[in-house]
């Protein structure tokens, strides 16, 4: 018997029980739809995060003090302005473009009749440039202001809102007090957002101001402590080598001999991106596993309906056998029926998943959700496999029916 006839017989049988076929398919539609929707959503979130990081400067390394991973070293030697200056030399990091520093402390900020407790970042004048974070209003800290430890401040948007109750308020020229010292506002940073915590809740002051006026950050070697050193390199490809160079230089400067004793960390945006992606893929896998349960339930639904169908059509099977159908013809007929049901469910499920993704895009306009080809291929393959797996037993039962008993069945 040729395959087109098998297909035709299966289609005819499915059309005879339209409502039942549709309901059976529904289980698979929901399962595949959920898988497709969740995979697409997961991909969209990953893409979104990647794009965000790209815009934050993908070729900037961040160096911070960190607890050594090895218990053999407990002391943490702070990073200093002198080390930062050394890292800016091409003789130490060949691909270095420029280096920005920041020194962070917490402080009380009062202004506009309000007070708030925020992070104060003393930053070098090239900080805005290196971090790709421009001012929205007014000016950023100038090299002269940095040099003279001027009492000027650039506010993050959240701070503007906290002090003046309105993000659009123009605070330039206003006087604020940071830890009881008077500062003049010279600018407002643009909105930065943040992956986990908002970076907009910050007050930026000249590095030296933070190190000398708000704190005493002088170190034994004649420099000042810094919290973060931002090292910008010429390209993303140079990041690997620069990481090695920085680690080598600082290890020597801090007298570290063994790996794991490093009291600093060097991270690149791609590292963080990698971690976030890892978290999000674990999450996606988890959600897809949950969605697969509905696929399993759908498969069991197909098996159930096929078993009912075989019992109900016992006489038909008997007749077909009496007319000369081989056991394999009957097997093929029922197997094709169940595969068609699940494959149809899979294809419709792809559509449903796509619709769900479109709906998700309406809710979160920042996400660009696309239907990836591999998800479609996966869904098609899996639904076919579900059809074969759950259809085989009923089909085999049909094929094994003895013709006389099947014909006698009422």
């Amino acid at each position, binding site marked *: *018997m*040729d395959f087109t*006839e098998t297909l035709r017989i299966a289609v005819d049988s499915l059309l005879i029980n339209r409502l039942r076929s549709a309901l059976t398919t529904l289980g698979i539609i929901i399962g595949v739809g959920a898988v497709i929707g969740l995979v697409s959503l997961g991909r969209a979130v990953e893409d979104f995060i990647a794009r965000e990081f790209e815009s934050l400067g993908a070729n900037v390394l961040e160096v911070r003090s960190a607890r050594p991973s090895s218990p053999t070293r407990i002391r943490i030697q702070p990073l200093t302005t002198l080390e930062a200056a050394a890292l800016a030399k091409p003789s130490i990091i060949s691909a270095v473009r420029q280096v920005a520093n920041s020194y962070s402390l917490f402080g009380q900020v009062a202004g506009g009749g309000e007070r708030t407790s925020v992070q104060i970042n003393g930053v070098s004048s090239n900080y805005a440039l290196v971090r790709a974070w421009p001012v929205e209003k007014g000016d950023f800290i100038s090299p002269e202001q940095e040099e003279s430890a001027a009492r000027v401040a650039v506010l993050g948007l959240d701070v503007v809102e906290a002090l003046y109750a309105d993000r659009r308020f123009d605070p330039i020229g206003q006087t604020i007090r940071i830890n009881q010292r008077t500062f003049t506002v010279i600018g407002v940073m643009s909105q930065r957002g943040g992956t986990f915590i908002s970076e907009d809740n910050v007050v930026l002051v000249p590095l030296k101001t933070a190190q000398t006026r708000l704190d005493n950050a002088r170190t034994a070697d004649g420099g000042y402590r810094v919290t973060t050193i931002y090292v910008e390199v010429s390209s993303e490809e140079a990041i690997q080598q620069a990481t090695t160079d920085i680690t080598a230089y600082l290890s020597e400067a801090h007298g570290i001999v063994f790996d794991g004793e490093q009291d600093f960390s060097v991270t690149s945006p791609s590292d963080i991106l990698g971690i976030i992606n890892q978290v999000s893929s674990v999450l996606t896998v988890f959600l897809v596993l949950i969605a697969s349960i509905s696929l399993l339930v759908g498969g069991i639904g197909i098996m159930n309906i096929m078993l009912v169908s075989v019992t109900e059509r016992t006489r038909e099977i008997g*007749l077909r056998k009496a007319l*000369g159908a081989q056991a394999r013809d009957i097997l093929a007929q029922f197997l094709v029926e169940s595969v068609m049901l699940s494959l149809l469910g899979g294809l419709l499920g792809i559509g449903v998943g796509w619709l769900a993704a479109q709906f998700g895009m309406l809710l979160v306009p920042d996400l660009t959700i696309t239907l990836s080809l591999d998800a479609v291929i996966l869904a098609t393959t899996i639904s076919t496999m579900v059809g074969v797996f759950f259809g085989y037993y009923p089909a085999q039962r049909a094929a094994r029916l003895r013709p*006389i008993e099947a*014909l006698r069945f009422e």
Partner: protein
Amino acid sequence: MFGRLQPPNGKKPSQSTEAAVIDIRNITKTYFMGEVTLQVLRGISLKIKRGEFVSIMGPSGSGKSTLMNILGALDQPTSGEYFLDGVDVSQMSESELARVRNRKIGFVFQNFNLLRRTEALRQVELPLIYAGVPNRAKRARAALEAVGLGQRLDHLPSELSGGQQQRVAIARALVTEPSVILADEPTGNLDSRSGTEVMQIFQRLNREKQITTVFVTHDPWIARHTNRVIMLRDGKVVADQRVKQPLIAGEAERPSEAEELQGIFEATYYGGKKEEYT
């Protein structure tokens, strides 16, 4: 009152020189049900030649359905041999039996056994599909024309009368040009008019195309339309006789029960008020 049918081609149907289409030798069938064994066929031998029109008769439990299943290659005998067209069928595998049913046997059932929501042409094509032969639609159309349903090719069973449905089933049995058509009470579910129509078709096919036909029936009226009657009782052949003057369907009218049972009654008895019975 009763019509007469001449034997096909004026030849006598049981001439021993002709090759037998069906040749069974000492067939037995025993069912084993735990402790109990039930011997349904106790050694049956018979030959049916090409062009014969045979009735197998017997009361319930005589083994006629079991014999029919064995003749139709739906079941295997416990012992004995069965040559169909000279080929031993009694030792065949399930798959070979399916082929034999497909190529050599046409079935007609009491309850028609048509596929629901399937057009007549498609029903008749079914055995050809399993045979994998070309020109299916053309052959199916010819078979439907042969049973007078050339105008009903695209009708569903629900759109056909009982007699027409059985004619579709006959076309389906005919379409593969089988060696023998086996019909199990083919008129059992039909009113007398449709039954006569169906009987006429069987007789015409047998007369014009020499199609070997075997009926299984318990109805003597049906058996009288065939050329030979084999009677079974308790799994054995008790009589195998030629019909002297087979009836021609449509020419003879079936006697009523009262006529058939005439002469067996002693007295007329009314259980209730007389008016209720008239």
